[in-house]
């Protein structure tokens, strides 16, 4: 489903060239539960951003569902993000002035789905993540764990095949972390490909496959 070939990402800071990713070759099949670990600055987030099509590699090729998307233009990439990829961020990235259900409706709004359909779909997802009754609360009225559930519901709005989660439990207590992890496992059972960055070895252990990054290179992979 996903295939990265010789992906490199370089940042230029003044006269200094920083290799964020070095010759990454990676295949992820449909329905896989993949965790990415590594120390700070190892390139995990950069890899995640490239996988999520919100950042471009400096070189290399990215195949998604057999299509070379490295040459896609903005509109095609936006469509791809809308259809195929759901993002879950460490800091939730919810819009504070919108209610939980309105936040979940955002991807559907962008797609142009009618209000009624998007509301119904968002309510289904709110129920799926166990937040029924809290749909009209704004993020500031929800706990960290609840906010992350809203973010997960939002990532599922367009029914994408791939969920990318960048340290989704990084800001949560252990109880909330376990609950969030449960949701990801449940989603994986529903056929979603889950790619998750984590610092926590327990979470990595619960996943099918774990890759470790160090200084922008994959140093270890075990299934």
């Amino acid at each position: 489903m996903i295939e990265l070939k010789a992906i490199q990402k370089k940042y230029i800071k003044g006269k200094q060239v920083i290799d964020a990713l070095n010759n990454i070759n990676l295949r992820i099949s449909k329905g896989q539960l993949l965790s990415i670990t590594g120390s700070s600055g190892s390139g995990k987030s950069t890899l995640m951003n490239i996988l999520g099509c919100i950042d471009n590699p400096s070189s290399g090729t990215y195949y998604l569902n057999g299509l070379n998307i490295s040459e896609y233009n903005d509109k095609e990439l936006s469509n791809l993000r809308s259809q195929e990829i759901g993002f879950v961020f460490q800091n939730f990235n919810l819009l504070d002035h919108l209610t939980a259900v309105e936040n979940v409706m955002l991807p559907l709004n962008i797609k142009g789905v009618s209000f009624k359909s998007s509301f119904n779909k968002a309510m289904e997802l709110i129920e799926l993540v166990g937040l029924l009754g809290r749909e009209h609360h704004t993020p500031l009225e929800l706990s960290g764990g609840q906010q992350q559930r809203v973010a997960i519901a939002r990532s599922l709005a367009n029914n994408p095949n791939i969920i990318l989660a960048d340290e989704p439990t990084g800001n949560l207590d252990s109880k909330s972390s376990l609950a969030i992890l449960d949701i990801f496992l449940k989603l994986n059972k529903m056929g979603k490909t889950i790619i998750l960055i984590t610092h926590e070895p327990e979470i990595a252990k619960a996943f099918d496959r774990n890759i470790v990054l160090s200084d922008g290179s994959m140093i270890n992979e075990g299934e």
Partner: protein
Amino acid sequence: MYKIYRLLIILKSSLDELRRNKLRTVLTSFGITIAIAGVTAIAGIMAGVEQDLTRDFQELGSETIIVKPNIYLWYQTNNLSTMSLKEQLALQSHVRGISKVASFSPFSFQGDGISGTQFSLGDKKANGTVLAISESLANVVNRYPLKGRFFKFSDSESRRRVCLVNIGLANQLDISDISQTKYLQLGNIKCRVIGIMPGSNKDILGTSADVYLPLGTAAQLNLNAISLRFAFKVLEDANAQGILKNVSNILRASQKTPRSSPNNFIIQDANEIKSLSKEVYRKIAGVLFLVVSIALIVGGIGIMNVMLASVNERTREIGLLRAIGASQEYIKVKFLVESSLLTLFGGVLGIALGYLTSIVLSSILGTSGQYIPLWSIYACISFSILIGLVCGLGPAMKAAKLPPIDALRAS
């Protein structure tokens, strides 16, 4: 279908965004409000003036000619030439192809022809203008009493204390019913009201007023206040240009004006005044529109500034929207809709404010102006939206071009 829904959703979310920052929305669009209010007020006043001019000239007829003292010469020489019944007789007897010559004069007890006069009837009081007129004026300017009768030659000849009241003042003093004898206190004299006159109390040729007195009566009250003007009509098939030249020659001869001196009278042709007045008003409006355009540009720059600040404030939101599938085009449209709504809001407020301003100004200026032409409303709304689009384009492009990953990282 998806595109329409998308636009409606953008519209709703933009409205929500503006509602969320009510004070900022109002303050930002204030510049546009002021500018559009200016445009609307000018358009309203212009329409009123045009309406007044058209009405005046419809009443008077385009063939009416007015001869009045040359007031500009008075400013230069400090010596006001006056015209008398001698000139009236000369015109009547020597100029062919004209109607009966009517005479009239602004009148005030102070004698300056400018000061208003106080009127009262019972406990009701009002201020206004007085015009001393000859009985033949009604036929020349096509203005006849709505009720009662016009002056007769004998009213002037016998210096009768009678008067005609304009409908506006009549309503103000509650004397619209003249079946019973009513006396109007006019300065320190009393006059019997014998008729109610129609139309405005002010016209471009100076043949209207709030109260009319017979010329003879006014002359008896204060002869110094009389400064005669003449009004007559050019008869059909007559050569208007030839008549104007003839009038000029006769008046100069009658006043023994030296060959080298300018006319101490002015001959006004109704048609000429109409086009001249319109041109003057258009030029004034042109200058005002220019000033307003500058206000509009300043307002537009304000909008651009606030939209740029908004892009900076909402960088993370833009990043998020991009991450969950929004294209550059979507972000651009979203910010353009927001800036257009801002200016549209300012424009609509401006139209309302301009309407009120035109009512106030037209009542001060004494012109009609209680309506705003439909074209100006369409123009203001379209222009407001256009300003929003033009001034929002830069910030919208900036927002759209933000790399999603950088936008998401913004603090």
